[in-house]
């Protein structure tokens, strides 16, 4: 083998090891969640400034008005699963630019730096109050959690991982929909992920989807709406089309509270709206009731 080739391969290995190292650090950072820049954060609902430390202690819920802040994937895992139990799977995916859109690669690399993720979806093995499960989280800070080829593939991989290990699957959804830059490939991910969920159904495994703010577009019209049990966070925006599009189409103002989690529970589209403080408890209860395939 040529020396240059060897050198290149060696460097690649080194780079990958470094990448792995940053991933391995994640459970630790999940213990003390990422502090958003600055010491204060402004609540969008009640307009008061909240000390970030209080916010983290309060599971990213505004202590004043109970507004649920948007949560990064790392923090979501941190506030949901047992300490040190999370093991990330499905590393090393590289997003490409299938339709040669301008500035797409730059955008992706910017988001990669900003969020320290390689794509908008993270999954792995975890335990919630000692109940083992596969947990998948969409990060709305990574291009609005939009679903492109890599996210679609990783969602399917997480389903397949759950099937191999015969574990229940929990997904936290936060996504604007399909990723426009990957065009038709993103659209096809809807079919791909929905098909995978069907396989999971045939195997008799539990799939809980938790809809958080926002859940719209191609993600809500595929695997997000197919949970055996669908939970939602209070006041989360959930729907197929965004409110702006609906307004433009029907040329009317929308009713108060339209497309919120409570609205959908009222219409029978969501099983239960669960406060973030009770999420861990609810999930662990549900998991315990579905052990041994649901038979008590």
């Amino acid at each position, binding site marked *: 083998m040529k020396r240059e080739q060897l050198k290149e391969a060696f460097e690649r290995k080194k780079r990958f090891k470094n990448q792995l190292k940053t991933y391995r650090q994640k459970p630790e950072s999940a213990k003390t969640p990422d502090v958003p820049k600055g010491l204060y954060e402004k609540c969008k609902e009640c307009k008061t400034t909240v000390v970030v430390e209080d916010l983290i202690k309060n599971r990213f819920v505004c202590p004043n008005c109970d507004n649920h802040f948007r949560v990064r994937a790392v923090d979501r895992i941190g506030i949901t699963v047992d300490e040190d139990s999370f093991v990330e799977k499905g590393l090393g995916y590289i997003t490409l630019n299938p339709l040669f859109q301008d500035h797409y690669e730059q955008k992706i690399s910017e988001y990669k730096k900003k969020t320290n993720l390689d794509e908008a979806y993270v999954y792995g093995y975890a335990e919630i109050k000692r109940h083992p499960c596969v947990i998948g989280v969409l990060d709305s800070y990574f291009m609005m959690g939009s679903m492109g080829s890599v996210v679609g593939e990783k969602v399917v991989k997480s389903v397949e991982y759950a099937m191999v290990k015969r574990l229940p699957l929990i997904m936290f959804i936060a996504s604007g929909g399909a990723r426009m830059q990957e065009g038709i490939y*993103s659209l096809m991910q809807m079919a791909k992920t929905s098909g995978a969920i069907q396989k999971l159904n045939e195997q008799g495994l539990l799939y809980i989807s938790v809809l958080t703010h926002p859940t719209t577009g191609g993600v809500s019209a595929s695997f997000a709406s197919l949970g055996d049990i669908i939970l939602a966070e209070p006041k989360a925006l959930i729907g197929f089309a965004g409110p702006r599009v609906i307004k433009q189409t029907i040329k*009317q103002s929308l009713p108060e509270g339209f497309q919120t989690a409570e609205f959908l529970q009222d219409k029978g589209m969501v099983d239960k709206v669960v406060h973030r403080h009770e999420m861990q408890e609810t999930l662990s209860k549900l998991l315990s009731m579905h052990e041994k395939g649901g038979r008590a």
Partner: protein
Amino acid sequence: MNILDKEKKLEALEKELSHLDDEDAIQDIRIKIEDYKRRAMKNLTAWDRVLLARHKKRPTAQDVIDNVFDDFIELHGDRKYGDDKAIVGGIGKIGGHVVTVIGEQKGKTTEENIECNFAMPHPEGYRKALRLMRQAQKFNRPIVTLIDTPGAFPGIGAEARGQSEAIAKNLQEMSQFGVPILAVVIGEGGSGGALAIGMGNQVFMLENSIYSILSPEGYASILWKDSSLAQEAAEAMKLTSYDLKELDIIDAIIPEPVGGAHREPEKVYRAIQSTLIQALAYYSQQSPYEIKTGRYAKYRNLGFFQRFNYENLKGVVK
């Protein structure tokens, strides 16, 4: 000059033809018309194809059903809420096969369009489609779907009745049917609204139809904040039949006559018919298990990405 302007010019030439009596002059104009068709109406841009796909006179799903299938009987309603006129469904015959046909219906006039909601289905439309597909599964009938929609309807009622759940459920169930699903994009294939009945074992497109994640106008306004750049967006989005064939998203292109399907619809109907019969013959040789797994594998492998495989380096580097 886009295709609609060219069409007007062609129509003017044809009008001229009808006024003439002189044999030689008629011959002259005929040659001119043929020449014009050959030069100007071929090599269409993506935007031209968008305009053709949305053409007012383009054959609708009902036209295709009437002319391609024999003894079509329409079946209405989703048994839960109502009957959505944006989706036409029923049973028909084609080349000795009995099939379930589901199509998204556009109108030709404004009144017709209002009645069928500009081919934008509500949840009950998708649930009707699902009901008919389940029925097809029960009686082991192949399913043919005709796609022609700008997208699923974004409205208050549609959201309240679970538009996203309806689409997701369709996708989930379509992945497990043991009967072949053949999808034909006959006009606009818009986003999830198209995919919700279009998850086929084979997907065909008419030459001048489009299939995309979003309308070019929407794409331009979301990504470039300017909806007037729709023409550029149409090029960038790779939404024409030729682009999608190249990307391996669709299986075959059904050719159209020069100038679009509406100029000689009869030719298009025959082309659709022969394509469908061929595909049906192919799938009649396969078992339900093969059909189901084949479809799953097709969609499972769709995607364009890379994975850094650490395992591959083993043995190369110590």
